[in-house]
């Protein structure tokens, strides 16, 4: 049953990165779009995201509940030593979630929009940035349970060049997901080529930020290259992701949006896989080497069993309903447009 729980944990994180990430990307893209094109970007984006918006962010809650029920030691260690970036991420989540609703549901469209919009776009940037920092800090091995002073216990546990680079990389991934997503939502050819140009640019940026992560890892003496390339499976995964990126780059013009989305999803899945696979079952690396493992630091068997059953039963309810929601508001619309 422990493996069922781990699969659910990993899948929730992946879906949060993919779906929540595309949502964050929407705000990020808005930030990096000239004033002239902003309203176009926004309109195209939110017609698509609106109905499934709330559901996208539920994956984070599922992941966190799995952590504190199934792996309490891991949840509490991260909560203590990564308190500061977690609080920053939470502030981002609050600001973003509420600003999104406020700007859509304010009955009077006036200057208050000028308050909501910057809050929305900047928190869309900050949240995935800190999410990336937290993810990087869990593997950068700087969490020090023996630390005596405030800085080394609660600040240098997460503040280093590697985690900052991963933060930036996460932001670029979100922007990438959003631009690929938006291509399929465009109403006319002008908009379509506008967003295809944007997608090209984002792909360059993602590759640049990815390289930055390796440079930062080298600088911080983190054996990232060994982790990822030192293993056959890891190597295959990375090569597959790169090839699909190249394919995507050339097919941006031609292929159907669904295919592009699948490719983008595949690439991000591979990145997350490569990043987590090499340490498995360890999930949080600790400075003195006493790493936290999903297998060793799991809760008592009965807790894991009931959690597993709760998740299985839950997914029987959630997945069909979610699929139907996406079908009604996404696919059906496209089918109608074709006919």
């Amino acid at each position, binding site marked *: 049953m422990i493996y069922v729980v781990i699969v659910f944990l990993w899948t929730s994180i992946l879906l949060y990165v993919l779906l929540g990430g595309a949502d964050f990307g929407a705000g990020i893209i808005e930030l990096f779009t000239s004033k002239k094109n902003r309203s176009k970007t926004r309109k195209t984006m939110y017609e698509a995201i609106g109905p499934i918006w709330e559901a996208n962010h539920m994956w984070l809650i599922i992941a966190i509940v799995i952590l504190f029920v199934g792996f309490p030691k891991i949840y509490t260690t991260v909560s203590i030593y990564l308190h500061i970036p977690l609080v920053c991420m939470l502030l981002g989540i609050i600001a973003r979630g509420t600003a999104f609703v*406020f700007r859509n549901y304010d009955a*009077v469209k006036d200057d208050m929009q000028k308050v909501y919009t910057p809050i929305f776009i900047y928190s869309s940037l900050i949240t995935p940035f800190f999410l990336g920092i937290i993810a990087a800090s869990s593997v950068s091995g700087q969490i020090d349970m023996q630390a005596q002073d405030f800085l080394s216990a609660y600040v240098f546990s997460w503040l280093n060049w590697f985690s900052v680079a991963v933060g930036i990389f996460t932001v670029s991934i979100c922007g990438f997901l959003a631009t690929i997503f938006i291509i399929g939502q465009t109403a006319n050819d002008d908009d379509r080529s506008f967003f295809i140009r944007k997608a090209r640019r984002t792909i360059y940026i993602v590759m640049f930020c990815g390289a930055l992560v390796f440079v930062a890892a080298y600088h911080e003496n983190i054996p990232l290259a060994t982790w990822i390339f030192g293993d056959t499976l890891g190597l295959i995964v990375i090569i597959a992701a790169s090839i699909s990126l190249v394919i995507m780059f050339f097919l941006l013009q031609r292929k159907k949006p669904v295919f592009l989305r699948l490719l983008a999803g595949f690439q991000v899945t591979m990145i997350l896989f490569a990043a987590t696979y090499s340490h498995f079952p360890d999930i949080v690396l600790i400075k003195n080497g006493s790493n936290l493992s999903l297998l060793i630091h799991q809760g008592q068997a009965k807790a894991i069993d009931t959690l597993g059953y709760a998740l299985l039963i*839950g997914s029987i309810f959630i997945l069909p309903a979610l699929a139907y929601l996406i079908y009604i508001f996404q696919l059906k619309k496209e089918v109608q447009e074709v006919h």
Partner: protein
Amino acid sequence: MDDFLAARLQMAFSLGFHIVFACIGMVMPFFMTVAHFYWLKTKKVVYKDVTKAWSKGVAIFFATGAVSGTVLSFELGLLWPTFMEHAGPIFGMPFSLEGTAFFIEAIALGFYLYGWGKLNPWFHWFTGIVVGISGLLSGILVVAANAWMNSPAGFDFVDGKYLNIDPIKAMFNDAWFSQALHMSIAAFVSTGFAVAGVHALMILKGKNVTFHSKAFKIAAVFGTVAACLQPISGDISAKDVAHRQPAKLAAMEAHFHTERNAPLIIGGIPDTANKKVDYAIKIPGLLSFMTTGDFNGEVKGLDTVPKEDQPPVAVTHYAFQIMVGLGMAMVLIALLYFIALWKKQQWLKSNWLLKLFVIATPMGFIALEAGWTVTEVGRQPWIIQGVMRTADAVTPMPGIAYSFYLFTAVYISLAIIVSLLLYRQIAMVGKLYDSSTKPHKN
């Protein structure tokens, strides 16, 4: 500020904020679906207008409740890591089920808000029902987790270790039913009175009277029926607390000495040093009767609890008095409203009854917050009753005071913006929702 106090205050603020949004988010869908039902049945456009206006409210409250709930799931670990390390696996069952219920609610809300004209009308209506039921289920599950802190079950506590854990037993602990019942009814009372009060004010102002009258009636019926049921559930809760947590009951009642024929103490200022209550109304024997069913029954006082295990008396007592007092005031208004509905139809058109509802707008929520203060402060100094002290659960990270200031500032700004949004929604009813006054498009 002391870090421990700051952590407690931050938790209290976060919960106090979340509770309001969560309650409205779980109760308003029921009002909305009732109005929607009338629209489908009678085809009177005003019901459709009310439904649409309320669904906007649900969207705002649901989203705010969802983010504040996400924050809480992290804050449990950020502020109380030692508690979560041991309690997580034991009381996690309701949380993992709640994740499902909440997810379903989010999906159903997506269908509901964006489904006008896209779905079969009755299926569309049904998704609204799903929003309400899954919201209510989420609430019940979270309260079951809180109940476990008051009434720990489903594990053996041996030499500081938590052994043989049984998450199902932990979920169905002794307190879950009485707490979940009391809280669910409270959500209906407070939301019903708050919504009815707002619409009553608009009727008094003479704006879109038909629209607001229909809305008022639906909310008022929910709120008043729930208000009359609440004392029964309160009685169940009080008997349960007296039995399980005598220290909490003693603090609620400022009952210092164990005695038979114990009086019910109403109001007054507790004097902890001299162990007495000044200026209170005392009804002899009533507390004994209410908790044991016998006027001569023995009620344990604070003297049975070691000093270091006693909850703060004054806060618990005042909060309890506020909750009961406001609850009773709402029962009175409810009774007047029932008389008006059945016997004195002319009262419904008179201003004084509507004015009473306007005055009662915040009463439910104040009572709700006071009730949670009783539950939480009354359990102190324990975070898990009799097992773990709150002071032992707090995070080792210093500087929590700054985090408290930050979150307080965020929550206050959010409260202000949400109020502005609601004010605007209500002020714009004539232009956006009421078809009889709305400017026609094209």
